[in-house]
């Protein structure tokens, strides 16, 4: 038992150390993803409490959070310098894609919101 918790603690500490070395831009993106998912969870909790009457609004809200989180993850993949696949893609281009896709997503979301 103590070994288990010890192992977990060691694991978390090693993860922390490794994480500290990630560049700042990636950390910003990670934080954004966590923010989006948290908002989605709060909305799901609300729906669980009061029922899904305007179902389109619920879907709209949740999917906007999830969608933007997905787009942020894609941005992180493309911007990460350690990723060999996207070596030749300039990060500004990836950012531009991120902004454009977000704008389209939010247009659709606003239409569906009702």
């Amino acid at each position, binding site marked *: 038992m103590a070994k288990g918790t010890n192992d977990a603690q060691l694991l978390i500490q090693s993860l922390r150390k490794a994480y500290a070395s990630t560049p*700042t831009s990636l*950390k*910003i993106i990670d*934080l*954004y993803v*966590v*923010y989006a998912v*948290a*908002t989605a969870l*709060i*909305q799901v909790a*609300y729906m669980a*409490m*009061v*029922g899904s*009457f305007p179902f389109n609004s619920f879907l709209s809200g949740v999917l906007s959070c999830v969608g933007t989180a997905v787009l942020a993850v894609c941005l992180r993949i493309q911007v990460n310098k350690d990723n060999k696949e996207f070596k030749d893609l*300039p990060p*500004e*281009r990836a*950012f*531009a894609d991120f*902004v454009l896709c977000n*704008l389209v997503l*939010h*247009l659709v979301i*606003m*239409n569906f*919101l009702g």
Partner: protein
Amino acid sequence: MAKPLVLHLLLLLICGSALLSSGSVIHPISDAHRSAATELFVPAADGSFGSLEETYEALRTFQILGVDRSSAKFEGTCKTVSEKLSSPTTTKDLYHALKITAILGCRTESIEFDGITSRLQTAVKDASSLLELYYSLGGLLTVKEQGKDVILSDADGTFQAIKALSQSDGRWRYDKDSTGSSAFAAGIALEALASVVSLAGSDIDQSKIAVVRKDITKLFDRIKRYDDGTLYFDEKNVDPDQYKGPLATSASITSGVTAFAAVSSEKLNIGGEKILGLAKFFLSIGIPGTAKDFFYQINSLASLENNRISIPLVLSLPATVLSLTAKDQLKVEVTTVFGSHAPSLAVSLLKVLTPDSKEVTSFEKKELEYDPENRIHFLDLSPLKIDVGKYSLIFKVSVNDPEGADLYATGDQIIVTAFLTGFIKVDKAEIAVSDSDAASESVQKLDLSKDSLISLSANHLQKLRLSLQLTTPLGHSFKPHQMVVKLRHESKVEHLFVPETSSRQYKLVLNFLGLVEKFYYLSGRYEIELAVGDAVMENSILRSIGSIELDLPEAPEKAAKPPAQPVDPLSRFGPKEEISHIFRAPEKRPPQELSLGFMGLTILPLLAFLIGLLRIGVNFKGFPTSAVPATFAILFHGGIGAVLLLYVLFWLKLDLFTTLKALGFLGVFLLFVGHRTLSYLASTSAKQKAA
């Protein structure tokens, strides 16, 4: 005694072949026609009735019927017509305009008749079709009748030109090139030929006129006939757009033939009965419904009224239903087609026929007396001892003056249908209830003249007997068209029975034993109603004579139910009960505080994100410092902010289309600005890497 008989025979011979003309009801033109004319021909504000042709037709009809034409409206017509005459128009318009001027009596000082005459004479010379010749010749004739001097240069040639278009069967073609001929064109051609003869005076060769007389005889061979002696002309084998119909064709031929008869020195070989047949055709139309038909009818009858062949006289009865009780007299009028008085005549009633064409033998030929004040021939019916009924009366009209006899066409035998009505006596009316073995009867006398009601009672083993006799005023037994006895139950279920006739009596026997099923086993009070009716019965009976209490056995299970009685229409079609609508209950919404609370809760992760950003050490070092890229960067961020603001507006109040439009503009702007900014950033980071 023999002399009148010989005279009678002579008249018969002169008046032509015997013709049995039967009873269509015709009346001469009367005030009803005049009022119908004023209703049908309604002038517009400027006094015209439509085109020049229609105006002419309306005014000519008014002229013939004697309708007032002096109204102020027609002064305007005079002016428009005289303008037409001075301007270049077609020959047809000239013709109608000249005719209108003549009818209205317009002032002719301002009209240049010489110019018009020369125009018409050129038209006659250059004419290529029958209608052109007709209109131009008619116009010249109208000008001549106004008192001006008109010369027709080549009368013979014109006559020949018209005659050349005739066919061997008496019909005419419209021009040299057309192949079809029509009887309508024949009428027009004859009128045109008559105009030529009147204009030329004695220049026309009489043999030519004789040839045309033969053509007219051939034309009259084509006449068609109804059974009652009415005659008319109709077209066969004519183009559908050339087909004018029997009224127009007959009218055209009548005008043409009467016009030609007026100019021909010898009498035309057409019998008086043909003229009378045509007159009957026009009169049998009654009051026509359209303006054109009205004109055709009135114009033709006017030509027939004063024609030179023979003037038709029509016999009409002002009343065809005569009452024996009121001692009506049989009244007969003989007049011309326009109702003007005829010469001195003798009208005799030859025979009286019953509907099955048997002669009433008790009747002998009688001559009607004449009432000069009312100009009516009458006959007292009571001494004739004719019973009630429907009869065909056969009249004969003869002109008293033997010289004038061939001037008039009266037809041979004229058949008119008349009704003699009278009071029918009801005798020996009895109603009785008897047992089935006819042992005892309780008879009650019915007096149908009084209002008394009888009441009886019977059960299903008994019989009901109703009998009566009907007698005419002259004492014969009468058989009415309708005699029905109705028994009506309290629940409004009705049963009808027809009494049987035997020798002089009508008897109805109802054996209730056999009728139990028919009555649907309904016991109770039945009202008895008697209906006796006939066209000649002045005192038809429709009344309740009393009631009978019927006692019928109980209905077995499988018996037929009485039919449903009609429902009171007000209850079926009246207002119905009100419907209260049930609307869908609205969804349950959560309490507002909870929703607002959660909205606040949603903002929390944003705050956490911002705090986290600060913790990580976000900085604005990468923001470009030099002026141009800085502006672009600011614009880029501003553009994204604007798009997000647009989305908020879209959610609040805009619709998708305006949003997309605005988004299009913003998007293009954003693309441009973003491209500049990001490419600048990319170039700076590339420089940094290189360095």
